[in-house]
């Protein structure tokens, strides 16, 4: 049931940052995605006809003011939530066509998550947290890949520790490790630096960058921090549930500039 993962079939040879979006197959596509909460007079449109390609092997940031629908968009892209209308495709798989169980298995095998509040299981060690998706699938984790991930995240010495014995930055790196272990098609990160201090936050963003550059993974990150967005290859701006602007090779200043323009 698992399709050939895009990052593996198209390993990037250099920094993806310089690669034009047209040359890369989209890892995730949203087509006419609509999400409406409630009905009738009280209906609230969270996503208004969003069409979007998120290319594989790249680091994309989704930005927007509070209530712009960026979290909803990510939840729908990640199969945690369902659309009111429209489609979301992970590779060739249409999420809407899947049952709850199939979506769960898709999350397990083909997607990775990093949450703002780490959300590690307190009873499991760092290593066990990382290998959790494999354990759930009843598969032995690929030791070589595991080692690669752990080396990249510089977690070597802390693997047997429980989450409560780790710093925030370390916990979030474990969470990134968990997201990567099954070589997902896409890693979704929801405000991953939100609960970290600026130093740990910057460190984590460099890790995410290297995950894309060195490991060839695809990362989609929701953030409201222009500094964080600057680490991405491109930024998608959302206002009132609509994609209003896309920015390639962002810098902090250009992001701020767009945000200022959109706010006015």
């Amino acid at each position, binding site marked *: 049931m698992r399709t050939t993962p895009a990052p593996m079939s198209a390993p990037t040879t250099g920094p993806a940052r310089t690669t034009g979006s047209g040359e890369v197959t989209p890892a995730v596509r949203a087509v006419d995605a609509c999400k409406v909460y409630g009905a009738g007079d009280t209906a609230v449109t969270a996503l208004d006809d969003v069409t979007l390609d998120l290319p594989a092997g790249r680091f994309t940031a989704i930005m927007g003011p509070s209530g712009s629908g960026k979290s909803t968009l990510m939840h729908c892209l990640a199969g945690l939530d369902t659309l009111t209308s429209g489609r979301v495709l992970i590779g060739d798989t249409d999420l809407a066509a899947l049952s709850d169980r199939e979506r769960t298995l898709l999350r397990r095998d083909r997607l990775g998550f990093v949450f703002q*509040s780490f959300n590690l299981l307190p009873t499991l060690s760092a290593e066990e947290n990382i290998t959790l998706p494999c354990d759930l699938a009843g598969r032995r984790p690929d030791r070589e890949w595991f080692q690669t991930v752990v080396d990249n995240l510089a977690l070597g010495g802390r693997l047997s520790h429980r989450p409560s014995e780790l710093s925030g930055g370390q916990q979030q790196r474990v969470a990134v490790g968990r997201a990567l272990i099954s070589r997902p098609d896409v890693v979704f990160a*929801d405000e991953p630096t939100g609960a970290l201090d600026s130093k740990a936050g910057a460190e984590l963003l460099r890790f995410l960058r290297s995950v894309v550059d060195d490991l060839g993974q695809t990362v989609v990150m929701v953030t409201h921090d222009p500094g964080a967005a600057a680490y991405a290859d491109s930024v998608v701006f959302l206002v009132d549930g609509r994609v209003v602007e896309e920015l390639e090779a962002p810098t902090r200043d250009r992001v701020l500039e767009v945000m200022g323009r959109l706010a006015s």
Partner: protein
Amino acid sequence: MFRFSLRNLLASKVRLLLTMASVAVGVAFVAGTFVLSDTMAKAFDELYAGLTAGTDVVVRSESAYDADLTTTGGQVRPVDEGLVARVRAVPGVEVAEGSVFGYALVIDSHGQPVQPGGAPTFGTSIAVDRRLSGAATIREGRAPVGLGEIVVDARTVRRAGLALGDHVDVVFEDARRTFRLVGIVGFGETDSILGATMTGFDLPTAQTVLGKTGVVDEIDVRGADGISDSTLRDRIASVLPDGVGAETGEQVAADSTDAVRDAMGVFTTVLLVFAGVSLLVGSFVIWNTFNVLVAQRRREVALLRAVGGTRRQVLTGVLLEAVVVGVISSAAGLGLGVALAAGIRQLLKLIGVDLPTTTPAIETRTVVAAFSVGVVVTCLAAVLPAWSAARIAPMEALRTAAPVNRGSGRIRHAVGWSVLAVGALMLAACSVAGDQRWWTVVATLTTFLGLVFVGPSLARGLAAVVAHARRPGWRMAARNVARSSRRAAATALALTIGLTVVAAVAVTAASLKDSVSAAVSGGNRSDLILEPEGAGMGVSSSVADLLRARTDVDAVVELREWGAQINGDDQLVTAVDTAGLDRVIDLGIASGSLDALRAGSILVSTAQARHLGVSAGESVTVTFPETGPRPFRVAGTFDKGSLINATYVITLSDFEQNVTSRLDQAILLTTPGLDPDRAKERIGAALADYPNVTVNTPQDITRKAQHSVDQLLGIVTALLLLAVVVAVLGVVNTLVLSVMERSRELGVLRAVGATRRQVRQTIRRESVLMSTLGAVTGVALGAAAGVGLARSLSEQGITTVAVPLVTLAAYVVIAIGVGVLAAVAPARRASRVDVLRAVAEE
């Protein structure tokens, strides 16, 4: 604060319901026990008050001591009928009549005995002056006159399918006789006296058929108008010979009720033990619930404290919740108790114990006991968690993660293992030494206390073993159990209590069953054993005479028993025919000799002889309730009395001099040269006139005894099941709470790809781990306690110890299965956790 507490309570209805259910079941047991015994006492009260309503003074022999009603049937030494005239002559006496009562078993129109379970079958004389009969009235027909006439109670008439004018056969102590039914007796609106069958005759007939010619059991007196009962009693007393006393009717009724209450004492105690067990289990569950509840509300409590709530207010809040829970569930428990009382009566009816009934008696004492037990237990169980809740530092509690168990202290650990070791050693010592009933109980409690201390360690140990499992579901379940090991242990311990008692009972019962067959095969030499059917009072002695006349029967040994005091202790004394005794039974004479057993001598079981400190040749005092103290010389001691359940054996002639009843408890026969089944058939046919007598081969006796052990075991297990149910409610409770507490974790699990099924499995496995812990500790402790108990009941006939491994293993398996069941609802709840809400909201 009050409003806050109430709102908290209502916030989680499931939790509330489960907690209340566990309190209610415990309370129900206490209340049910009281209601049952009070109802029975009330029924007897009403009965005796009704029967003595028209009698002002009763004259009868004084008892040497207040004997247990179940061993003597209240029989006192009959007085000479000449005394009636003397009493009648006392000034102020309007009427004085003698009356007699005794064994009389009605045979129905199909030739079957009308044998109510447990209630007596008696015949009595009908007073000429109807006022003396109190509530007993002739409803139809007329009073009996002469040798051929009988009146019968309305219920028996109905059950036996009789009508006025029919012939009725009745079996007495000495023979079977036929009468014509001339009247039907009712008791006010009731058809029978508490289910007993009653037959009535005129006095001379009653004296003849009941074997009381020339004597009366009591003289009922009615005073002239204007004379008080007590004055009349004193006047009468002054003309009575030594050993005969006068009491007012009211006094007799009260004394009779008291005697019944005493006889029920053991029964009440047993029920209260069950109540105690389920309450103990219940308090574990409540303690746990409040513990989790408080842990879960740490943030809430912290917020309260942060905005200025004092510790005292927090404490009061939790206690207030406890009181509300306690009061409501006590009320529910009280209601349940009334139902339970009826249920237990039905259960006892199944094994043939037909208890009297009237409207349920709910006395103030019952209500007070129910409420104080329920509320006090709930509050005690809530106070510790409340205390710890009040001590939470506000900021500590505001942390979001679920509280992680702090490791238990080193001291607690050391103390726990020491207590456990001491308890286990004591249990082992009790099993080796034997005869240590109370020490066994103490040792069991000590071991359990040790388990309470080391429970969390055991839970962690079990978890550590299981955590090595390759399957991630088991590992996660194990980790969760280890994380909240105290809670897991407390949950498991509730199950431990129930299973300890169940397993101990199972071991004791299995040992008893083995001992029964050992006793029959070991000491028996008879070919056939005759016994009364069902709950019958005995076998007419005429049966033995009939058998002695037969040529195919060799030895015929009658066996009777009666309550008496030996050197001041209440005991049962067995009387046997000395002739042929050693041909039907091997008593296992240890010292002295069987030949030395003759009039004025007694055989004592070896254990009792040691207990009394007497040996062959010395003397003991046997006090019979009817005739008072008599010296007996110890003819010898014996080891194998369990076949006939005997610890003291005297001769039949001594027995007859001191006891009025002529009923045999059993008759042992040898039928040389006859095939056992053929012999059984022939003797059965010969006893066609006595349908209340069962003819048994030794194998039948074993089977019957084992069957009654099984029945008893079934009832006890059924009662204890309630305790297990409470414990299971506790498991459900703990799981539900822990699922609620971990909804976020469960959401993450689902987000990273755990299927609903996997989540359910994890919860189920947690439940299985907890129930395994409870089941294994409970069954192990129970088996050890059972061995200790069985070893201490050698005098009660348990001579071999048997551990029913299959049954015990089955208990463990069942408990684990129950764990799976208990997890169904919590697991479903866990698998339905809203993933988005769990992971998206901060």
